[in-house]
């Protein structure tokens, strides 16, 4: 993990945006307020850092009203309370009104593993996929968070930035909306999303595979996938397994291809413990990813 967490970087960057852009606002539902108080953003911008209390539906609706008034609202909460609980508000008070906001979650699929299912949200991106127009970013490092948030601040479209307590050792030189080519190989193309990169690199260190790193999953960088050598594709996503499978299929519509989707299986998990234990249980650690890739490509796949 880097010196600064993704969530800490989020508060720093948005605080800076508040200082420099009078059209930026923050909407919170208690969660995260303390961090914005600590760094002085609430004191400096009491009218633009809005805490609605524990009212997540109102949190999204207020962001919609702010957007109708020309403001760029950053909305932040724990993943299930930002995306799942107020989903109709996202659908109607943002998308149907024709306005956007920047939704920034923390917690990912199971950062708060010990809190149980109520705080786990592996289905968030699949849910947002039912709505048109969302840009969706899944950074794997705090430095990437900064790039993506500053990019999001310049637009008016709906954006989702999915933060996590996990982090890759190093940031990738990302361009929002594009995959980053980490290395090229012949046996398969592995798309590694956000915080899965370190495990993917460990799992494939001696395998002859292309690694595409994706910190943006919507839009899905179809040209980058088409440019890869192999039509055996492995999709490694740290949320609901197969969430981007339709995107891979659309990208390779005219080419015979095979797809292995690795992610969080769709189940009602009643386990606590640690994020690492959940990763291992779902085959999302390096051991599990390697085993499934080798089964998929056949043989040992080595260089």
């Amino acid at each position, binding site marked *: 993990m880097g010196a600064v967490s993704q969530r800490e970087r989020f508060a720093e960057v948005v605080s800076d945006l508040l200082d420099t852009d009078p059209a930026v606002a923050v909407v919170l539902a208690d969660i995260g307020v303390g961090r914005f108080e600590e760094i002085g953003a609430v004191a400096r911008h009491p*009218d633009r850092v809005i805490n609605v209390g524990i009212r997540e539906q109102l949190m999204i609706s*207020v962001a919609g009203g*702010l957007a109708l008034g020309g*403001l760029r609202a950053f909305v932040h909460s724990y993943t299930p309370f930002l995306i799942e609980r107020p989903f*109709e508000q996202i659908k*109607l008070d943002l998308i149907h009104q024709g306005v956007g906001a920047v939704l920034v979650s923390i917690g990912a699929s199971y950062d708060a593993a010990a809190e149980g299912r109520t705080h786990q949200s592996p289905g968030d991106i699949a849910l947002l996929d039912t709505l048109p127009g969302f840009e969706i970013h899944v950074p794997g490092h705090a430095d990437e968070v900064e790039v993506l948030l500053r990019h999001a601040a310049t637009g008016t479209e709906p954006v989702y930035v999915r933060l996590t307590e996990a982090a890759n050792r190093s940031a990738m030189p990302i361009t929002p909306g594009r995959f980053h080519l980490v290395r090229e190989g012949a046996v398969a193309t592995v798309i590694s999303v956000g915080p899965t990169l370190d495990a993917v690199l460990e799992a494939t260190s001696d395998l002859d595979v292309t690694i595409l790193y994706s910190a943006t999953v919507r839009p899905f960088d179809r040209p980058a996938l088409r440019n890869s050598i192999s039509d055996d594709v492995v999709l490694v996503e740290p949320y609901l397994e197969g969430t981007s499978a339709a995107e891979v299929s659309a990208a390779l519509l005219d080419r015979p291809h095979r797809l292995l989707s690795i992610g969080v299986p769709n189940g009602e998990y009643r386990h606590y413990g640690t994020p690492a234990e959940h990763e291992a249980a779902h085959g999302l650690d390096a051991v599990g990813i390697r085993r499934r890739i080798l089964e998929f490509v056949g043989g040992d796949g080595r260089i």
Partner: protein
Amino acid sequence: MTTQTEFRYDDLPSLMTRMTGDEKHSTAATSTLDVVWVLYDRILSIDPRDPADPDRDRFFLSKGHGPMAYYAVLAAKGFILPDVLNTFATFDSPLGHHPDATLIPGVEFAAGSLGHGLPVAVGSSLALGINGSPARVFCLLGDAELDEGSNHEAIAFAGRYALDRLTVVVIDNNSSSHAWPGGIARRFEVEGWSTATVDGRDHNAIEHALGAAHAGSPRAVVAVVQGKY
């Protein structure tokens, strides 16, 4: 005030008939008729020639079903051409059974699902304050719509934030299944709102209630009309 056209209040039934095809109009449509007319005729500072003026007053019709009265008033006040009313609810019409703000000039909010207009109106009120605008925000709800919990998140917050540029009109046609102990106005008062309850057909009373000063607190006007049948 809106631009004067040749249409008056007495012309609204004929405009509504363009959509409904007969002279009998549903209670859902007519319950809002007088309040919407008074808003557009006497209260709102809006101009159909400049519907995107950043300092215009905002009107959020949250109770979007039965919008014929709303559309008739928009036509009467010059936001849409009366002939557009004839296309009501057809495939390519901008006028559906629930208004869509992206399709109709002068409409601020795309309504349909209940309990969304007031929370968004709260956000709009905050935005206008941040932008230093003098504009006011009016939001119309139905009494049964108040059953939706999302409204109560907004009512509580608006009271604490003293959003005095915000006025809610609740059309009370006694259609809430379980009603409100102590009356609708009481529900707002306990959250710090200024309130009034008026005859929802009395134009002068509606105008007076909507125009009354309420510095430091949001305003709720309960407009009582005949019950559904």
